[in-house]
């Protein structure tokens, strides 16, 4: 007995992951490894380069805002291409999920979506994947996105609205111009758009800056903000530095970078 206790006390264990709470949600092994057939039901244009694709997914196990999934396209000779995409829709969407995709130049998969896909097409998907960037609606959320990096953040905004959550949630979204702002009609008082090339009259043009971030960190909600940053690597580096400079603790910044 004594020996056992001694052994347990001296037996080394793994160091804890420090910078963010790991394993926020249990990810079911089965959920992640099963490929499901999804039927495209609707395509909506958001901007000249971005469209939303709505799918019926029988057996979809549900997801949390911020999670992503893996899509697989299969050619006639059996060749496959798979990509990770963030889920745009909130969890409560009656067996449907939505993806909002950039038309990437020479994009093998996004090219198919933007030029060939039409309602009735069937593709394969697995997920939801990864709990790290998920927001279950359990704490105040400060969201910073650029371009289609706003997609997983929009799932959080939509969830916040659909559930009438009263927890503070703020979104800073960067776009090149008003025409490039994804989901432009859906934003409410929780959102501040930042335009980097052209802006509506009376709105400044420029990169996201300390002046956008500082006021949000000045109004600290109880328990502080959980920050979520999504976009290109250069945006993620820039935005996360702004957050750190404004006093947001590094271990409460979650980053999802394209790539």
């Amino acid at each position: 007995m004594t020996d056992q206790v001694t052994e347990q006390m001296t037996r080394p264990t793994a160091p804890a992951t420090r910078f963010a709470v790991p394993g926020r949600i249990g990810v079911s092994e089965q959920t992640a490894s099963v490929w499901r057939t999804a039927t495209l039901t609707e395509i909506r244009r958001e901007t000249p380069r971005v469209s939303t694709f709505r799918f019926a997914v029988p057996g979809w196990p549900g997801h949390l805002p911020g999670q992503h999934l893996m899509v697989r396209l299969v050619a006639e000779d059996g060749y496959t291409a798979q990509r990770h995409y963030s889920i745009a829709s909130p969890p409560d969407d009656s067996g449907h999920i939505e993806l909002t995709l950039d038309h990437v130049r020479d994009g093998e998969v996004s090219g198919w979506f933007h030029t060939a896909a039409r309602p009735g097409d069937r593709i394969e998907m697995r997920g939801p994947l990864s709990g790290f960037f998920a927001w279950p609606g359990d704490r105040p959320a400060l969201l910073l996105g650029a371009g289609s990096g706003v997609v997983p953040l929009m799932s959080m905004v939509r969830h916040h609205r659909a559930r009438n959550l009263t927890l503070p949630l703020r979104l800073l979204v960067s776009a090149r111009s008003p025409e490039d702002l994804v989901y432009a009609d859906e934003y409410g008082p929780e959102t501040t758009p930042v335009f980097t090339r052209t802006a509506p009259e009376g709105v400044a043009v420029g990169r996201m800056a300390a002046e956008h971030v500082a006021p949000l960190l000045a109004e600290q909600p109880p328990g502080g903000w959980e920050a979520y940053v999504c976009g290109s690597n250069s945006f993620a580096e820039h935005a996360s530095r702004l957050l750190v400079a404004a006093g947001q603790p590094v271990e409460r910044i979650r980053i999802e970078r394209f790539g």
Partner: protein
Amino acid sequence: MNITRGFTGRPRVHNPGLPPGQYDARDEWPVLSAEVTPDLAPEDWTFRIDGLVAEPRTWDWEQAHALPADAYEGDIHCVTGWSKFGVRFGGVSLDAFLEQVRPLPSATHVVAYAHTGYTANLPLADVTGGRAWIVWEYDGEPLPAEHGGPARLIVPHLYFWKSAKWIAGLRLLDHDEPGFWEGNGYHARGNPWEEQRYSGD
């Protein structure tokens, strides 16, 4: 698998170096870290090995550089789907560090941890025998911070999330414990040739 109507895909290239489900990223090297890139100067960098070893020890930048130089030239594979061919990393073989601390026979696994707090678990056998390095150079230049500089672990025969950036240490254990991504649904080992992406694959 169901055929996707109208999908042809990229021109087929026969590349025996490409694991299943991967594509060639060519000149791209995407950055996918989930945390804030730390400001870590070489003089503040340390690397420690402890746990089930005869003599735990910490190396600083100069002490690590005093070990025999070694390099990895080959391919790397990311779980998100890209592979990168013919990369060149310079540093020191992990074997040279382990030789000095002498792992105990009971050690079976390691947890690699970063100066940010990131963690990744690996079987000890995957980081010994010339299969893992601590590196500080990429293509002859200092490793950029966003790619893990000043120094990172590389274990190139596994998916690259195992190759912890901003490496701070290894702890040797007598059991397997999930690291950061492994606790978020990713596979415990991550062998790209068996497409071990997610837990259950």
